[in-house]
C-alpha cells in the first residue's frame, strides 16, 4: 500500500513538472484596440464653414469627410465668417455613416439687415446695382450675410455709394452724406479721376480747358469731359509738385514746379532748369509773361527774365535794384511796370525805364524806398488788372498780421478787413461778370472771399458750403458757363455753379 502511494506521489510530481516547468513568462506589448470605423460627411451652403469638433478647430472646412471616428457622441460646430455659429451633436456608432448638410440660407436667423440713409431723405437706393422701389431712409431686412454695394442718387446731389458688410442678426449701417451739387460739384480722388486732393494752382485757358496743378501728382488738364495727366514720368514736366500756372496771351500754358519750369506751347514742351538756363535754383515761385513775349521766372534766389532779342537777364539783390532775392510773386500792369513781391522786404516796382521803387511798411533811407501802408513786408501774391494792382500779404514776425492792399494811380487802399485768415494764397480777378464789374476772389487759409465792393463780400467756409476744407489755393473762371472753379488744399477741386 505504501509503495502504491509513493508511485502516486511520484506521478503527481512528474505531471506537475510536465505541465508547469515549461510555464515561461513572456513580455509582450499590450494589445492594440480595434480601429474605429465611424464616418461623417459635413457640408453646408455656402460651403467653407470651419468645422469644430468637440470645441476644437479641426482645421477642415465644409464640405469635408471625417473618417475613422470613435463610437461616441460628437459636438460639431460650424463657424463661418459673417454667419452665426451652428452647433449640432452626432452620435457615431460602429460602421455608421452620417451625412450632415447645413443650409445657412434657409435659416431666417442667419439673415441680416442694412440700414440705408442719406443726409437728404428720398434718395433712390441701388443694392448691388439693382434699383429698389423704396427710398431713403430704409431698413432692408432678410439679407444673406456678405458685402453689399449700396448706391444712392438724387437730383441735385452727387451720386455716391458705400459698402455694407452684413452679419447674421445684425444691422449694417450704409449711411452716406450726399454732396449737394446744386451749387457745389466736387472733384476729388473718390469722385473723379483727379489724382491728388491737394490742388496748388488752377487756371482756365482760351479753350476753356482747366489746368490744375497738384501737390504731388503733376499737372492735370480737364476739358469737362476728359482728364489728361502730365507728370515727370510721362511728359517733359520737370517735377510733380506744381507751384504756379500762368496762361499767356497766345494760350501757352506755363508751369512752375519745385524742379524747374516748363511751357506747353500747343502740344510742344520747353523746359527751363538750372541745367539749360541761368536759373539760380529750380524752385519756381511764380511766372509772368508780358504781351511782347518777355517771360519772368521768380525764384527764391532771384528773378530771371527772358526777352526776345536780349535773351536772359538775371536780377539778384546785389547787382540790381531787386530789394530781396526771395521773390514770391510777380505781375505786370498795363503801363508796363513789373510788380515784384518779396519774402520780407516788401513790394518792388520796376518801370519800363528800368527804375526801381521799393515799398516797405517802414521808413528807410534812400530815394528808391517809400513807406506804404502794408500789414507786413511779406508779399504772398500780386495780381493786376489794367493799371490796378492787388497785393496779398502774409504775417511777418514783427506785425503778425497779413491782409489785402490795392494800388491804383499812386494811392493805396487798405480797407479790406476782416478777411477769414491773415494768410492769403491767391488773388484772382474775374472780368467776365454779369454786370461787367471786376470781381475779386481772395483764397485764404481759412476761407474764400469774393466781392465787387468789399462791403458786399461773400465768404465761403465750411459752415455755409458742403465743402469739408477751408484751405483755398485759387479760383479760375469757366469761359463757357461763367461758373467758378475752386482749388482747395486737401479737398480737391470744386465747381461753384453760380454766375456772378
Amino acid at each position, binding site marked *: 500500500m505504501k509503495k502504491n502511494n509513493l508511485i502516486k506521489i*511520484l506521478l503527481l*510530481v512528474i505531471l506537475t513538472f*510536465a505541465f508547469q516547468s*515549461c510555464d515561461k513568462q513572456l513580455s509582450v506589448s499590450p494589445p492594440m484596440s480595434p*480601429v*474605429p470605423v465611424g464616418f461623417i460627411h459635413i457640408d453646408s451652403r455656402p460651403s467653407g464653414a470651419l468645422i*469644430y469638433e468637440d470645441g476644437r478647430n479641426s*482645421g477642415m472646412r465644409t464640405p469635408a469627410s471625417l473618417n*475613422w471616428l470613435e463610437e461616441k457622441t460628437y459636438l460639431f460646430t460650424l463657424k463661418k465668417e459673417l454667419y452665426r455659429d451652428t452647433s449640432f451633436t452626432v452620435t457615431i456608432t460602429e460602421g455608421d455613416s452620417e451625412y450632415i448638410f447645413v443650409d445657412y440660407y434657409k435659416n431666417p436667423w442667419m439673415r441680416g439687415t442694412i440700414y440705408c440713409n442719406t443726409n437728404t431723405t428720398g434718395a433712390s437706393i441701388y443694392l448691388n446695382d439693382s434699383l429698389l422701389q423704396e427710398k431713403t431712409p430704409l431698413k432692408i431686412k432678410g439679407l444673406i450675410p456678405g458685402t453689399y454695394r449700396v448706391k444712392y442718387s438724387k437730383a441735385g446731389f452727387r451720386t455716391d455709394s458705400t459698402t455694407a458688410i452684413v452679419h447674421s442678426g445684425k444691422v449694417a449701417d450704409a449711411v452716406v452724406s450726399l454732396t449737394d451739387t446744386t451749387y457745389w460739384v466736387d472733384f476729388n480722388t473718390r469722385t473723379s479721376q483727379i489724382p491728388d486732393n491737394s490742388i496748388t494752382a488752377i487756371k482756365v485757358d482760351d479753350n476753356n480747358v482747366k489746368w490744375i496743378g497738384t501737390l504731388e501728382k503733376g499737372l492735370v488738364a480737364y476739358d469737362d469731359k476728359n482728364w489728361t495727366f502730365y507728370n515727370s514720368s510721362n511728359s517733359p514736366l520737370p517735377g510733380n509738385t506744381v507751384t504756379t500756372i500762368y496762361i499767356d496771351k497766345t494760350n501757352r500754358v506755363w508751369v512752375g514746379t519745385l524742379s524747374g519750369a516748363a511751357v506747353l506751347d500747343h502740344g510742344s514742351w520747353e523746359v527751363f532748369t538750372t541745367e539749360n538756363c541761368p536759373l539760380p535754383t529750380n524752385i519756381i515761385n511764380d511766372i509772368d509773361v508780358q504781351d511782347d513775349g518777355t517771360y519772368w521766372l521768380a525764384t527764391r534766389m532771384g528773378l530771371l527774365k527772358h526777352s526776345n532779342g536780349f535773351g536772359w537777364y538775371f536780377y539778384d539783390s546785389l547787382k540790381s535794384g531787386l530789394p530781396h532775392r526771395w521773390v514770391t510773386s510777380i505781375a505786370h500792369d498795363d503801363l508796363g511796370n513789373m510788380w515784384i513781391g518779396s519774402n520780407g522786404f516788401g513790394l518792388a516796382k520796376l518801370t519800363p525805364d528800368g527804375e526801381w521803387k521799393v515799398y516797405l511798411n517802414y521808413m528807410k533811407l534812400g530815394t528808391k524806398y517809400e513807406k506804404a501802408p502794408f500789414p507786413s513786408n511779406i508779399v504772398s501774391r500780386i495780381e493786376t488788372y489794367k493799371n490796378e494792382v492787388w497785393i496779398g500779404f502774409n504775417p511777418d514776425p514783427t506785425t503778425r498780421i497779413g491782409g489785402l492792399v490795392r494800388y491804383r494811380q499812386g494811392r493805396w487802399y487798405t480797407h479790406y478787413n476782416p478777411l477769414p485768415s491773415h494768410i492769403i494764397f491767391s488773388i484772382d480777378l474775374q472780368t467776365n461778370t454779369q454786370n461787367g464789374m471786376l470781381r475779386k476772389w481772395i483764397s485764404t487759409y481759412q476761407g474764400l472771399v469774393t466781392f465787387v465792393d468789399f462791403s458786399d463780400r461773400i465768404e465761403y467756409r465750411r459752415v455755409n458750403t458742403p465743402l469739408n476744407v477751408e484751405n483755398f489755393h485759387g479760383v479760375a473762371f469757366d469761359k463757357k458757363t461763367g461758373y467758378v472753379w475752386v482749388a482747395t488744399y486737401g479737398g480737391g477741386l470744386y465747381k461753384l455753379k453760380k454766375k456772378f
Partner: protein
Amino acid sequence: MRKLILIPLLLVAILLSSCDEPFSPKGKYLERYALFGIMRADTNLQVVTVTKSYDVEGLNPYANKKDPFIKNCFIRIWRGNDEVHILRDSATVRNIDKRYSDSAHFYYTNNFTPQKGDELSIECLLPNGRRLKATTKVIQPIEIDYSGTDLEIPVTDKKFAQVKWRSSVEDLVYSPQVELYYDKAVNGRWELHTVKVPMKYAVINGHKTPIWPSPSHRNYVQIDTVVVGQILKSISEGDPNKSHYRIRALIFSIYIYDRNLSAFYSSSKKIGDEFSVRVDERDFTNIDGGFGVFGSYTEKKTAILFTEKYIRSFGYVPLKTF
C-alpha cells in the same frame, strides 16, 4: 520495483526534453507606430516624423533597408482650441541614416512658432485609421544666474569660464552650445563668422579630441579658458594680418528641453561609456496610441565678453558692442 526505477528515468527525460524548444529573442512581429515631434520655439518651421515597427530576417535590425516612414498621415498641431496647423509632407536628401536609399521624408509646417507657456497638442491620423495623440507645454525660458556666471575672459583664479542658470522647473535637461563670434575683413568689408567651442580637449587613443557640451541636468556649463585661447588663435592661423579680425564675444546658447523631452532623453541616453547600456533601460513615450515623443524646447542666449587687453594680446581688434 522495476517500475519504481522507471519513474526517475521518466522524470529526468521530461526535465531534459519537454522544455527543450528553440528559443528566439525575437517575438512575434506586431505593427506599432512612433511619432517624433520636437517643437522649437526659435523658428516657425516645425517637423514631425511618423514611423512604424518593422521586421527583418535574422536578428540584425540594421538589415532593414526599407524606410519605415508612414506616408499619407493627417497631422494637426493645436495651440489652444482655435489655432490649428495642418502639416504637409515633404522629403529631403538623407544625410544621416544612409541605410535607406530613398529620400528622408517628414511632415512640416512653416507657419507656427510656439511661445513660452503654450499648451500644444498633436494628433496624427494614420492611413489605417489609428490615431497617435500627445500634448506638451512649452517651457518657460531659464534665467541666467549672474552670481555664478563669468562676465569676462580671462577669468581670475579659475581655469574655466562658467555660465550658470536657474529654472523654476526641476529635472529638466539642458543642452548648451558655445560659439565664438568674430568679424573678418574680406575685401574691405566686415563679415560675421562663428566657430564652435568645445568644453575641453582630451587625448583619446593618442588623438586630441574635443569634448563638446552634452545634454544633462546640470544647470551650468564650463569652458576651459585655455581652449578658448586656442580657438581664438586658430581663427587667424596662417594669416599675418591679425587686425583683419574683430572679436565680438563668446555666445552661450542653452536649449531647454520641456518635461516630455527631458524624460525621453533621460530614458534613452547611454551612460558610462559607449559600450555600456542601462540594464533598467525603458522606453519613455508620451504618445497615446504609439511610441515616440512630442515635446518642445526653448533657447536662451547669453554672452561672455573678452577684455580689450586679452583680445589685443592676439593682435585682434576688440568689439564690445554687437
